[in-house]
C-alpha cells in the first residue's frame, strides 16, 4: 500500500524524517462575502509515532489545515503556482475565475515524501481512512444514523482491505472491543442513536484505527464530551497510539489536552502558525506574545477569579487580515515593523526546534516569558489572578 510513496522517499531517507511535512500550506475559500484566507502559509511537521498538538481559537484555521491535507474541503480545486505574483494573489484570481471550485489549496503536504496536494483522487481515496484517518468533534452527528455502527466499520474495512464481509465483521467487532465497548459482538448491530456520546466517539476511534493508519488526525475529539468522558477518551487515544505506533495530530483549543497528550505543539493564530515547539519548551519558555496571552488566560483550580483573564480584542477577519503581523492589533508589544511586515517562523538560538513568528528580539522574549512564568507562579501561590497586562508600562 505504501509502494507509491517509496519512490520519492529518498529526500528524507533517515528514519527520523517527518511522517507528514506541511510546507507553506494555503487554503482559500470563495464565499458570498469574498475570499476567506482560512490557511495562509502554514508549515509544520509530524514525526512518526509522535503527537502534534495544534492549538488556537475557533476559526484560526486549525481544522481547515487538516482537511486541506486530505482534500476534504468543499469542492477543492487544484492549481500550480508560478513566479509572476504572490501565491495569495494567484489563488484569489483562480477562485474568482472558477465556477466549479469553491476552495483552493497550494503548498505541499508531504506524507512519507509524497505530496498529497498533487495526488490523484484515486490515490487520495486510498490514503483516506487507511494511511491517514480522521476523527471529528461531534460524535453525535459524525456517524450515519441510518446504518448500524457495524456496517459503518465494515464499510471502512472493505474500502481498503481485500477481505470477505464476514472477516470484515470480525475485524469490526475486534475494533469495538479494543476501544472498550462492552458486548461488542452484540453492539455491532446497534445504530448510533443507541450509543452515548462517549461510546460514539469510541466507535469513531475504532473506525479510524481499524485499518492501522500511520497518522490519525483528531479534530477536537473531546470538545463535545463531558469532562469525565474527555479524560477517558484521551486516555484511550494515548493507549491505542502506543499500541499501534500511530502518529497523531490533535486539534484542540484546550491547552490542558495539549499538556496531557502532545509531544510537539503548534500554536495557530489567524490562519498562520505563531509558534511551534516541543511541548515542554512551549510551557516552560513561550516566545510569542499570543502564546503568553493563551497561557495567561488558562483557568487554574488554585486561583479564584471573578472573570477569566482574556486577550484584549477580537481575532481578525480572514476576509481582510490586518497588514503586517496578524496579531499586531491585539499585541501590546507591537512596534512599527510589526505593522509593515509579516513575520516568518524562525528558530530560537537556544533550541532549533522551538520556532516562533515574532519580530521582538530574543532577549526581550525570554525576559517577558520569565516574567509571565513568575506571575503565574505567584498567582498560584497567592490565589490571585494574573494581571491581564504583564508588561511594565
Amino acid at each position, binding site marked *: 500500500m505504501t509502494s507509491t510513496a517509496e519512490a520519492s522517499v529518498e529526500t528524507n531517507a533517515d528514519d527520523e524524517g517527518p511522517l507528514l511535512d506541511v510546507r507553506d500550506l494555503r487554503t482559500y475559500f470563495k464565499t458570498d462575502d469574498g475570499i476567506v484566507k482560512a490557511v495562509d502559509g502554514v508549515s509544520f511537521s509530524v514525526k512518526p509515532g509522535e503527537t502534534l498538538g495544534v492549538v488556537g481559537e475557533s476559526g484560526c484555521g486549525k481544522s481547515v489545515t487538516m482537511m486541506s491535507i*486530505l482534500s*476534504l474541503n468543499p469542492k477543492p480545486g487544484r492549481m500550480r503556482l508560478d513566479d509572476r505574483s504572490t501565491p495569495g494573489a494567484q489563488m484569489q484570481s483562480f477562485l474568482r475565475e472558477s*465556477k466549479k471550485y469553491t476552495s483552493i489549496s497550494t503548498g505541499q503536504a508531504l506524507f512519507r515524501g509524497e505530496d498529497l496536494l498533487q495526488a490523484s483522487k484515486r490515490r487520495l*481515496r*486510498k*490514503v*483516506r*481512512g*487507511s494511511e491517514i*484517518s*480522521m476523527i*471529528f468533534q*461531534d460524535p453525535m*452527528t*459524525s*456517524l*450515519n*444514523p*441510518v*446504518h*448500524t455502527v457495524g456496517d459503518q466499520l465494515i*464499510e*471502512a474495512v472493505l*474500502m*481498503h482491505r481485500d477481505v470477505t464481509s464476514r472477516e470484515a465483521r470480525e475485524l469490526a467487532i475486534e475494533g469495538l472491543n479494543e476501544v472498550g465497548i462492552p458486548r461488542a459482538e452484540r453492539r455491532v448491530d446497534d*445504530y448510533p*442513536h443507541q450509543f452515548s456520546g462517549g461510546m460514539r466517539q469510541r466507535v*469513531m476511534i475504532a*473506525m*479510524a484505527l481499524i485499518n492501522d493508519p500511520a497518522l490519525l488526525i483528531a479534530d477536537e475529539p473531546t470538545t463535545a464530551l463531558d469532562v469525565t468522558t474527555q479524560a477517558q477518551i484521551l486516555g484511550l487515544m494515548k493507549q491505542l497510539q502506543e499500541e499501534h505506533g500511530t502518529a497523531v495530530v490533535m486539534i484542540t483549543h484546550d491547552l490542558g489536552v495539549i499538556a496531557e497528550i502532545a509531544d510537539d505543539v503548534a500554536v495557530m493564530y489567524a490562519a498562520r502558525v505563531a509558534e511551534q515547539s516541543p511541548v515542554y519548551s512551549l510551557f516552560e519558555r513561550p516566545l510569542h506574545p499570543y502564546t503568553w496571552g493563551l497561557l495567561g488566560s488558562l483557568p487554574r483550580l488554585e486561583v479564584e477569579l471573578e472573570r477569566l483573564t482574556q486577550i484584549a480584542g477580537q481575532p481578525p477577519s480572514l476576509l481582510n487580515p490586518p497588514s503586517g503581523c496578524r496579531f499586531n492589533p491585539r499585541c501590546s508589544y507591537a512596534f512599527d515593523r510589526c505593522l509593515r511586515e509579516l513575520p516568518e517562523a524562525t528558530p530560537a538560538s537556544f533550541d532549533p526546534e522551538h520556532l516562533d513568528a515574532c519580530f521582538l528580539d530574543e532577549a526581550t522574549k525570554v525576559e517577558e516569558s520569565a516574567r509571565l512564568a513568575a506571575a503565574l507562579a505567584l498567582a498560584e501561590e497567592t490565589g490571585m489572578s494574573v494581571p491581564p497586562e504583564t508588561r511594565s508600562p
Partner: protein
Amino acid sequence: MFQYLVRRTLWAGVLFLGVTLITYVLFFLLPADPARLAAGKSATAEDVARVSHQLGLDRPVYEQYGLFLKHLVIDQSLGRSYANRRSVNEMITEAAPVTIGLVVGGAILWMLIALPIGILSALRPRSLLDRGAMIFVLVGISAPVVWIGLLLQYFVGYKWGLTPNAGYCDVINPPEGQTCGGPWDWFYHMILPWMTFAILFAAIYARMIRANVMDTLGEDYVRTARAKGVPERQVISRHVLRNALLPVVTMLGLDIGIALGGAIFTEAIFNLPGLGRLALNSVLNLDLPTLQGVIVFATLAIIVLNLIVDVLYAYIDPRIRLT
C-alpha cells in the same frame, strides 16, 4: 406495535366522526334546499314537502347525522343519491379506480421527474442544469393546473394530435357501447391527465429533494464517509440519499392521500369520471349523500396512508420506534 395500531385506529375513528359531522353541519348552513332541487323544476310546494320527507330532510340535523352513521355502521351503506337515487356505494366504487389510477400514475410520473432533477441540481448547485431546473420549479409551482391542462390539451392533443383530448377508457371491462377499452386505451387516455396532475407536484418535490440533498451533503457523517475513503458515488447513494429521501416518503404518503380525495381540476378538464368530478357534481346538485360518500372515502384514504407512512417510516428510519 399492536398497541400502537389499536390506538391509531381509535384516533382514526374520532377523526372520522369529526370530519363527517362538520360536513353535515356545513351542508345545512347552505342557504339552499336540496329537496327543491331534487323534486325538479315544475314541482309544487307539496311535491317539495313530499320529497323532503322522503329524503329525510325534514328531520333535525342531528337525527339525520345519526341515521347516516347507523346506515354506515350497520348496513355499510352510504345511502342513496338525492339527485338520481343511485346507491352511493356503487357510484364511489365506479369513480374511485379512475382517481386511483390518475393519482398513482401521476405520483410515479412526478417522482420520475423530481428525483433526477432534485438530486442532480443539489449536486451541482448554480450550474446551468440547476438554474434551468429551478425555473421549471418556479413555473410548475406558479402555473394554475387548469391552465397547464388546457395548454397540453390544445398543443399535444389538438394541434399535434399525439394524444386524445379528453375522456376515459376502462382498463378491464369497458361498459357496453363504449368505443374504447383495455390497458392500452386506458394508458393512452391518461397521458395528458397524468402530466397535468404531475407538474405541480413534480416542481414541489424537485425543490424539496434538492433542499434535502443539499442539507444532507453538509452533514458530519458525509464528511466522515469521505474521510474514510468512500468513493463519491457511494457517498451519495449510501450516505446522502438514504437520509435525504426519508422525509420525502412522508410527504409522498400524505400527498397521495390528499389527492385521492379527488384531483378536481384535472378530472374536470379531461372529463374523467373520478371522485373529484363526482364531488363537484354533488355539490352543484346539493347531493349530500354523494358528497358525504366522497368525503368518507377521502378521509379513509388519508387515514390509511398516514398509518402506512408511519409504519413504513419505522422500518426505514431506525431512530423511529412505534410505541
